[in-house]
């Protein structure tokens, strides 16, 4: 398995980026998911959605060139690409819930084998609020979880989530530093291994039952 922290991240976000198709409207969650934007494959033209009210989220502005009227969903200075569009919060979530958002990429505290997701609170410890996460997961056509496979060695892919849920049965794909796992009606299907990673390592780092794909591949990252 990959040991280096930066290498782990790079593998995850590069692999997630390969899931995006030309013309997709995509929402990238705060943190690691935002890095996916740096690895969009050549020839793929996507639009990024920002919950606070626009499509066409652009790169972070250079220091000194920030526009206080353009922030991203994390409140940080941002930019809009040519052809973007601003709107109000109602329109923003019309896009999210109404089936107009092709992909959402989010981190997770826990995911389970029924496609349930917990990523918004740890009772008594961390209660930041769900923000737009519940709408995104319930509404996006495809929900991709990008995360490290374990939290300090403890599995995050479980038989059943124990933390408060963000949504029930909405996760489609899990991409980690060890594997690509599809959520299917019959359970979690291990379809790809990260470089330098074995099936045994993945099974040991996963609490949930895994079905090993007959076409198991190594990630092309």
């Amino acid at each position, binding site marked *: 398995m990959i040991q280096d922290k930066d290498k782990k991240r790079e593998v995850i976000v590069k692999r997630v980026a390969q899931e995006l198709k030309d013309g997709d409207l995509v929402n990238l969650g705060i943190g690691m998911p935002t890095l996916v934007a740096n690895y969009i494959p050549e020839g793929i033209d996507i639009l990024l959605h920002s919950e606070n009210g626009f499509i066409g989220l652009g790169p972070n502005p250079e220091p000194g060139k920030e526009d206080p009227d*353009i922030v991203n969903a994390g409140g940080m200075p941002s930019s809009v690409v040519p052809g973007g569009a601003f709107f109000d919060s109602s329109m923003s979530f019309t896009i999210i819930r109404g089936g107009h958002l092709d992909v959402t990429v989010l981190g997770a505290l826990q995911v389970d084998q029924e496609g349930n997701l917990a990523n918004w609170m740890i009772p008594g410890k961390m*209660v930041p609020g769900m923000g737009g996460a519940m709408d995104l997961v319930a509404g996006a056509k495809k929900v991709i979880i990008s995360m490290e496979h374990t939290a300090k060695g403890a599995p995050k892919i479980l038989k059943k989530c124990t933390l408060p849920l963000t949504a029930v049965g909405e996760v489609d794909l899990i991409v980690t530093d060890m594997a690509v796992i599809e959520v299917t009606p019959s359970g979690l299907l291990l379809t790809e291994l990260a470089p330098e990673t074995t099936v045994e390592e993945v099974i040991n780092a996963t609490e949930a039952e895994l079905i090993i794909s007959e076409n198991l591949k190594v990630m092309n990252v």
Partner: protein
Amino acid sequence: MDKIRTIDEAASYIKDGMTVAVGGFIGAGTPEKLIDAVIEKGIKDLTLICNDTAFPDKGVGKWVVNRVVSKIIVSHIGTNPETGRQMNAGELKVELIPQGTLAERIRAAGAGLGGILTRTGIGTVVEEGKEKITVNGKEYLLELPLKADVALLKGSIVDKKGNIYYKKATRNFNPIMATAADLVMVEAEKIVEVGELDATDVMTPSIFVDVITQ
């Protein structure tokens, strides 16, 4: 009808215990001068409806730090550690609502709707105590309208009749909140004469706006 007031006059319409909706998203598109004036007047015990509690030194985050609010109805508090601290100490009541549901509950109040149906929150703590309604075989949560006594908005360009244009990402909750309060006050970045703001560019029609300040 002259709707223009000083910041101080505008803030004086807000009384202890009122429910106040404030536009903005982590501080962008928030009426900072009105926020500050409410603090200076020592107004207390407000219930705040806002997307988030911004940062401790920005937007409604300052209301949390200065204990202007005793209850908040928001989707996110993660950018303001003071909100979490007061919540955990039992000093501040916090009601967390999914962002899209918050927007639609406010819109419902302004649009005369008895509520909205959403899939968001099904199977989570958000569904607790709420009615579920099945439409075409799919289960939805009934979410009720959310109205305020006062709405505080930030407009980029406001004409003297009260028509509002919002620049870039400052629009967010502002035009929705404009419809869902008894008293609607807008803090303008720029006030222009009637006619200078093209009717095509108006995002909040003047009929919603009671007070203009700068």
